């Protein structure tokens, strides 16, 4: 079997692994789940008790708010937790993401996670 075939099969196999992994985890990366849920969300962030403006939130997380994520809300919360954990260790924010998936009941996600 040539090296090309091995590399190609590996690329295909990784996707199969990610499809299986998505059954056990809310992430939907590399598993072909585009436009499978419509997540209307809004991000609220507080630093030392002061609320960040919409522009500040968008600049900090590079995410629009309010907005719709057509993949999974996990993509939004995953980015927020990464940004606060890695880039803003010294000025941590208290973040609340309110969201509705496919018009369902409103839910909240908090960072830091309780």
């Amino acid at each position, binding site marked *: 079997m*040539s090296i*090309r*075939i091995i*590399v*190609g*099969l590996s*690329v*295909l196999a990784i*996707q*199969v692994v*990610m*499809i299986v992994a*998505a*059954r056990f985890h809310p992430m*939907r*990366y*590399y*598993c*072909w*789940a*585009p*436009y*499978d*849920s*419509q997540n*209307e969300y809004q991000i609220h962030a507080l630093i030392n008790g002061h609320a960040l403006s919409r522009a500040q939130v968008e600049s900090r997380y*590079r*995410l629009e708010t309010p907005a*719709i994520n057509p*993949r999974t809300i996990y*993509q939004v919360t*995953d*980015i927020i937790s*990464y*940004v606060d954990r*890695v880039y803003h260790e010294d000025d941590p924010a208290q973040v609340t993401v309110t969201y509705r*998936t*496919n*018009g*369902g009941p409103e839910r909240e996600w908090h960072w830091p996670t309780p």
Partner: protein
Amino acid sequence: MALADSIERFSRSSWNPLRVTDTDLPPQLLLMAKVVVLGLVLKNYHLGFPDVFAPFFEWMEIFPAPWYRRAFKVAFIVCGTALLFNRAVRVNCVILGGLFLVATLSSKVYYRNAKVFVGVLLFLTGLQEKGKPPWMIWWQLAIMYFGAGLNKLLEVDWRTGQYFDHFLTHIYPSEAYRLIAPLLPGQWVAKLMCWSIILAEFSAAVMFTMNRLRPMAVWVGASVHIGAALLVVGDYGIFMAAVLASYLSCLPWPERLDAATGTRGGWQRVRRFFGMLDQDRLIHWADQPPKDGAGLTLTGWDLRWSGWKALGGLLIWTPAIYFIAVLVLTGFDGSGRVVVVRLAGTVGAVVLLGTALAKLRTLVSAWSARPVIAP
């Protein structure tokens, strides 16, 4: 020996970007790759590469901004240009695909399924072995449709129809849905839409792995994407153009086609038009008109088509047509894009319906012509 062969082929390949033959890739795969790259440029994807921000692997933070994204941009422009001019096509496909795969790994904000699809499609194209069928791309399509179908099947909102009901009522309010939805009780219209997509995606996944059913897989897949485009009047970034281009991997490519036209002015214009576009000199035009009086005939692989079918063959096997199509599909913004998506979606739907009816007619003819055993 292999290196010498590659060098010889490198110098022999034409610099004409409209040509797709005489390279290390099968013509239909090179055409697919070029169409995708052209679409990416027209949609400005080459300007949108990210710096590292919320990457999948924290060690990627070592790459400095803005040099990281600038390196991607330069690499895309160099490799994309080289690919268009038929230079080192396989290596350039691997690099271009790798750029998009690494870019999606570099930033979860940048991550989109369309970019991943473009990445794997170009990457696998670059790994294509000479003289072998492009089975890795067929399996890629199968895995994509399987993943999409499975995720929808396991989402309760897809099983109940809630997804489409909400989407077409609140996210993208559809007048057509508002009129159709009350025809059935509850969310049954939305439910039927959801389940038809789930079934179509699973069917396409299975059929892409089977040689005999692959043309039907293309039909089913194209139906899903054209339906989605018409429903939301959107092209999902580069995704629509890329996935339709990927179906070129299922198209057999002839080494030679023989064509003949009647003497009427219209057919002569067809001949001149395709003669001008056919930069690979794939089509050999006869000096004499067809003996059976047909306006246009096309012959390849010992098969003969005439009239509209022959014209369809010329359209299918003329690479320049695909370049024109991608220019039209991806070259517009704003209201122009809406018009193009509506028009292209409608043309696509008519073509799909036409091919389905033609197939049905063939089946009915075969059924009528079956030998009947007398009682």
